[in-house]
């Protein structure tokens, strides 16, 4: 036990001494979360749409007005010669062509048809545009001057947890999870690969410290650093994105510690498997970053991931912690609803720690 504490104390002193690493530890995650929280918008808004109106009547003007009323689409002026020109040039995402007899048809109580060309390179956007135009057309029918209809079924939609549908509320908690995975493990991987690269690891081999004590000491130190990173990151995102704590604090605290522990141990595992700092960073960054970014369900729902990869996503600690974050900041779930998260994270931390310990278990040079 004394050896573990000695090791831990040494790591903390070393960490504090290295300015570049300290900057990396606190500044980089904050920068990253600002970037993700503010600049990642999945929801389509302000979609540029251009209208080619061949009709000169009242109804087409009214229709166009309705189209741009809800702010989802913004009008851009028509330019070009072919109908598809604005799409080809990337000036607009959709072209709406209103035929010359539009107003006349409506006046005559005929169906007026409108041609809509949608740039479907961005699938999400394309769907939103289509839905929006169809909804507008239906709305136009009812609110339009022709006949006052009464709705027989009125939906009362209640959006739970995030009534304003603020997107930062769904992106920020997920980003916290992703960055609390990447940065603590980056630090811990550097701390072990540096010992290997600089040869100080020989001193450890030559002393009687066991692999368990060594890894536990390092893990403990970097867990403490990780907790301080978590406090900085969560604190700054609370201020920046006005997050509030709505869930069970105990579960979240436990989940955070377990998650950080598995992140730190993952870094130790990567560091002890490679021989140089740059190789370790590349290994941890590419495997850790891409998997936690893509497979944790932080951007798009985790159940959308296709079959072989969906299995992989289930063993990622980040996937569980993304849920824990959303539960704590948005959903407000109770203790027993998320007990499985603690179990999964605890298991992950244990397994990864054991893996890291095993790699170094000989505490000897390999032949």
């Amino acid at each position, binding site marked *: 036990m004394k050896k573990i504490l000695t090791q831990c104390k040494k790591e903390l002193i070393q960490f504090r001494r290295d300015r570049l690493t300290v900057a990396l530890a606190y500044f980089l995650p904050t920068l990253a979360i600002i970037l993700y929280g503010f600049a990642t918008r999945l929801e389509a808004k302000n979609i540029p749409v251009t209208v080619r109106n061949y009709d000169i009547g009242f109804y087409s003007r009214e229709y166009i007005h309705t189209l741009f009323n809800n702010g989802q689409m913004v009008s851009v002026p028509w330019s070009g010669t072919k109908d598809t020109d604005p799409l080809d040039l990337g000036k607009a995402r959709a072209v709406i062509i209103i035929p010359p007899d539009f107003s006349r048809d409506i006046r005559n109580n005929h169906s007026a048809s409108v041609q809509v060309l949608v740039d479907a390179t961005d699938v999400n956007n394309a769907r939103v545009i289509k839905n929006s135009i169809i909804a507008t057309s239906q709305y136009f029918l009812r609110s339009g001057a022709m006949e006052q209809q009464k709705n027989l079924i009125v939906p009362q939609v209640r959006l739970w947890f995030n009534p304003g549908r603020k997107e930062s509320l769904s992106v920020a908690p997920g980003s916290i999870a992703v960055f609390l995975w990447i940065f603590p493990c980056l630090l811990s991987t550097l701390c072990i690969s540096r010992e290997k690269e600089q040869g100080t690891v020989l001193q450890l081999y*030559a002393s*009687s410290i066991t692999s368990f004590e060594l890894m536990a000491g390092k893990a403990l130190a970097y867990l403490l650093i990780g907790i301080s990173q978590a406090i900085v990151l969560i604190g700054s995102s609370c201020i920046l994105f006005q997050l509030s704590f709505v869930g069970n604090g105990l579960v979240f605290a436990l989940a955070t510690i377990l998650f950080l522990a598995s992140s730190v141990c993952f870094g130790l595992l990567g560091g002890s498997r490679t021989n140089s700092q740059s190789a370790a960073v590349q290994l941890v960054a590419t495997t850790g970053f891409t998997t936690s970014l893509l497979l944790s369900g932080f951007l798009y729902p985790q159940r959308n991931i296709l079959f072989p990869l969906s299995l992989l996503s289930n063993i990622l600690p980040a996937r569980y912690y993304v849920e824990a974050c959303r539960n704590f900041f948005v959903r407000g779930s109770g203790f027993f609803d998320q007990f499985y998260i603690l179990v999964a994270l605890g298991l992950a931390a244990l397994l990864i720690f054991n893996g890291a310990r095993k790699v170094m278990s000989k505490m000897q040079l390999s032949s």
Partner: protein
Amino acid sequence: MTQVPVVQVLDLKKNYGETQVLKGVSFSIYPGEIFGIVGPDGAGKTSAFHMLGGILDATSGDITVLGKKPRDTRLEIGYLTQLFSLYLDLSINENIEYVAGLRQVSKNDLKERRDKYLKLMDLDRFSNRLAGQLSGGMKQKLALCCALIARPKLLLLDEPTTGVDPVSRREFWDLLASITQEGVTVAVATPYMDEAERCHRLILLHEGSIQDEGRPQELKDNLNLKRLELRSNDLEKLSNRLHTSIDKAQAHFTDIQEFGDRLDVLTDNLNIAQSIIQKESVGLDLSISAQEPTLENVFVSKLKNAEVKETTARFPFVQKGAPSNSTAIKAEHVYKEFGSFAAVKDVSLQIDYGHIYGLLGANGAGKTTTIKMLCGLLQPSKGQMSLGGEKGNLRSALLRKKLGYMSQKFTLYDDLTILENLEFYCGVYCVPQDLRSKRLNWVLENTGLLGEENRLTGNLPGGWKQRLSFGAAVLHQPEVLFLDEPTSGVDPLARRQMWQLIRDFARQGTAILVTTHFLEEAEHCSELGFMVAGELVAQGAPGKIKAEQPGSLIELRFKDNQAAYNMLKTKLDSWRVSIFADAVHLVLDHPDIELESIIENCNSQGIECFSSRRLPFSLEDAFIGIVKRQSTANAEASAA
């Protein structure tokens, strides 16, 4: 010996894949001795230490340390590696506390031992300084302190003084001597022959097997050869004549080695050899002095018996017109400052074509900065320089074509094959097509790599790489050659060959600037410059520098050398006293007056002195004397 050995090694073998690093080595180390393992890079020293320390498994063979397997006695072994044992971002105290924690030293013991050793090593004033801010010598003393904090019974030191300046090296060895007095057994690996002199017993390791074993004096005596130092006004002619006489079988010369201002001849018959030399040196000035052979002589003779004949092919020189000016490199009052730190202060030197200039000094003394300025890589902050007749633009492509440069780090691409590397340098220096194959062959032949030119350079041992880089640096027959520590990690045989080549280039009129740590090697230079803390403190031919040392060096043998050493240290400046395996060395300014009273003094305290004799100064003695006198003078000046 009847004592139980601390370490017993039986038929130890180690393979890395196909390569056999140790080929069946056996030796024992007894309590309280300093046991030296001497050999060049790649001889298997480090692997042997790893196995002794229990951090590497042997392929076969038996190691017993203190009666157990090394792995089970790790807490009783102190281990110190080449410069890497410390955390540079921790302070002295933090380093010690960390090691103490790992090795389960109790709080009280820690405090007591820390205070004791830090005081002994003169580090107690700096206990809060970061290890990274210490000089090389202080770092190694701190590392030793860390290794001692757990009171090990056995101390393993793997090249502890690599990159440490001669002054600190000598202090370090004095410390080792006192430690063994406390009952610690020391095993030390070193590539330096002068350090080997200070061990109680030695083994010479080369290519994984033991070439010789014994006390330093025994080894030298067993050689049964005498060494003659010859000085003359025309060494080249003398050397040529002696070499031709070697072929006449009766010469009794086993070896002729050329240095900067002398020839060393080894002979088994002093009288015959002397008379032959007298005969051959007709018309030349000559002085002969007979000396003991050095350990290096022992080493080289053993290796020559063990293997290879030396083959040195001559470089296919192309006759070039003589340069218009005889001065190749000239620096006048050159300074270099990095921020507020003055790395080089007021350096003036001149190197003519055909001369070898050796720049000596510790790590951080400013050698590398100086060499970089002289070859135009760094702009001096102040001062005048000229290079190859060029004064203003030292970076022109035309000038660089005439320069050869071998930097301190490896200068070859590890991920290219040997041939690809050489072809690359031929290409960038535009070596004419018709000369290429001849010169490539020359490099391969001299490095012994003919037939292996498609091996990856990265897989070669350090010494080979070094010789290859030398080859790559001279492919274009440069007029001025800069060599920054060209021989580090090269074994003594190859080192001799390299110096022979360097001299060949000098004879063809190339001006050569060399830096080195090895003071023994500096003897090869025709002129030397000593750098201390950015300043050139002494310049001149090796013989002249030694001759200019005031006083003499005296070897005393006592019944109890350690007690005598402890006593003498209190009486004299501490740098004047140093302890060797079986003797104490003193530097006295006026031996005729001082010596007698010193011996009397010892005898009166019950420390009996058997013998005393004068020794010639080595360059190292001269260096330490210069540095110490300089700093004493500085201290006095500032006090006044």
